[in-house]
């Protein structure tokens, strides 16, 4: 028998070791943050911090949704297109002389997004189409639908009430940031404290074992895509309000940034391992790099090189975690 004192000691050490290795990415972020604060006087200004937070909120909301999908063992490439479609729908509801209720428009965007997500979910969970292919197909289909719906033209003239969603402030905090914060906290609670969160992790970790444990694996998989779709719809509404008109070509390539945030945060693409908290760190790393390089006036070409290098470096700092498993 192991000595008890020894045991609790052991487990404390183990926990600290694990924490350190997990917080590698946080360390990377802190280094980046400090470096940028030193490099540019305005980086730490309230104005700029507000800016950065507002800038990351779209990708943040998408990345939170992507965390659900990736944790459950899947991937979603269609979010940019879903975002655009939902944005057009929201825009159409609040344009013109007699604009509709902005909350209704947001609800519609979320609903439409969830619907597209549900189609992804059915293809993956029910018909066993590889997530990559199903959502790649949706990427194309939803974009086509967006262009069709908008006839390829932006929807302008959105009501000021609706635009408040993208441009307003509450107590000095931009509304998109508040939306992102709400989504994040909600996701954190769901993944961390609810039975559904456990299901997501279990299904991503090992579908067959999850099934043996009586978990409704299909519904869980399905739901992850539906949630992702709903959040893409929400992000679409916010983006539309922010860009003041609904753009059919919005969201091109956004899936890569969202996936990158999740993966930089250390959530495994295999599923079952990770946390939405680290996704937040990933989102902030990506956002801060973009903002910092713009502030420093780094020329576009070097910016791309530096951006790529920083992403790799951040993960290298964090790599010990992966090396262990």
């Amino acid at each position, binding site marked *: 028998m192991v000595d008890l004192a020894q045991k609790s000691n052991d487990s404390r050490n183990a926990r600290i070791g694990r924490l350190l290795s997990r917080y590698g990415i946080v360390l990377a972020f802190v280094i980046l943050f400090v470096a940028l604060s030193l490099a540019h006087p*305005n980086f730490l*200004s309230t*104005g*700029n911090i507000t*800016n950065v937070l*507002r*800038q990351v909120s*779209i990708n943040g909301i998408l990345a939170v949704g992507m965390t659900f999908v990736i944790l459950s063992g899947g991937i979603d490439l269609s979010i940019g297109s879903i975002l655009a479609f939902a944005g057009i729908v929201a825009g159409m509801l609040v344009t013109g002389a007699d604009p509709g209720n902005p909350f209704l428009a947001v609800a519609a965007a979320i609903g439409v997004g969830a619907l597209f997500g549900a189609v992804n979910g059915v293809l993956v969970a029910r018909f066993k189409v590889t997530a990559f292919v199903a959502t790649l197909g949706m990427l194309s289909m939803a974009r086509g639908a967006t*262009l069709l719906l*908008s006839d*390829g*033209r*932006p929807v*302008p003239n959105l009501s000021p009430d609706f*635009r408040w969603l993208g*441009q307003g402030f509450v107590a000095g905090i931009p509304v998109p940031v508040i939306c992102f914060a709400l989504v994040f906290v909600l996701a954190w609670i769901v993944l961390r404290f609810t039975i559904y969160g456990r299901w997501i992790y279990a299904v991503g970790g090992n579908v067959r074992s999850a099934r043996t444990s009586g978990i409704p694996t299909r519904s869980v998989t399905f739901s992850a895509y539906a949630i992702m779709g709903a959040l893409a719809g929400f992000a679409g509404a916010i*983006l539309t309000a*922010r*860009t*003041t*008109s609904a*753009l*059919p*070509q*919005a969201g*091109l390539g956004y899936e890569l940034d969202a996936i990158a945030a999740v993966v930089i945060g250390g959530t495994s693409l295999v599923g079952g391992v990770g946390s939405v908290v680290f996704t937040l760190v990933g989102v902030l790393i990506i956002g801060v790099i*973009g*903002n910092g390089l*713009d*502030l420093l*006036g780094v*020329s*576009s*070409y070097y*910016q791309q090189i530096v951006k790529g290098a920083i992403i790799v470096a951040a993960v290298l700092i964090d790599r010990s975690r992966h090396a262990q498993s």
Partner: protein
Amino acid sequence: ADLRVAAIVQSLDTEFNVLWANAAERHPLVQDGTIELTILDGRMDPFNQSNQFDTAINEGYDAIIFIPVDINAGNDPVARAMEAGVPVIGSNTLISDTDLYQSYISSNDVVAGEMLARSVIERLDGEGNVVIVEGMIGQSAQVQRLEGIQKVLAEYPGINVVETRTANWSRAEALTLVENWLISNGGNIQGVIAENDEMAIGALEAVKAYGLDPANVPVAGVDGITDALLAVQRGEMMSTLQDANALAQGAIDLAAAAAQGDSYEPRAEIWDVNGGSLEWGDGTEQQYSVPWVPVTADNVDELLALREGA
């Protein structure tokens, strides 16, 4: 530096924007360090451009020069900047609400579309099948050039548009697209109207690969990129030059004037006061229009020589 100017451009992946940026860097005041010019790459994303406005406003730039990706989505960031007391100068493509600008300097894309279509149609004597290769749907250049093209087409009932589709400003996409169209129409295409030069070059390659003689199948584009100038030189296509030099350097002078006030003397050679053709006035007009330059066998060598120097 006395003045700090931010230029928010569409994307430095595209040759026209690069030419624009290079011309801006050659402005005398930028060269001598009076103006510190920072070019922010919008990466073809309106949202990204909107974010860059926030950064520029927050950074306290004296003026912003803007080439918007999207005609509508550009309005709000411009309004925000003007509200924050940062003058915004439009250049090249425009936002829909141009009143928001301090001033703007541009070439009219509707006119470009007209010139483009006319050059092809006149070569065909108003008879024949043509195809239209479109830019990325929804962008102002696509919308306005198409408007111009359609205006001209309305005048020529003998012209039959057999295919219209986007190739997203991309040469490789246009190449594939036109190859496929030639097959589906059994080669029965007499002219290609492409909304920019990149796509026109792709189309030209497809026409040649199909075995048609570009002398008989006119291909036209807009922008005056180097490859297009070379093709014009070879007599294989038609192009219309968009004067990046005037658009960029003019915008810098306008930005400096906005920041410094009436006393400012423009420095770019393009202005009449400096021996160019563009009217400076007193630098307080809201709109300056840069004419299009049709590229012809006569001026192409000269244009290419200028390009070599750039």
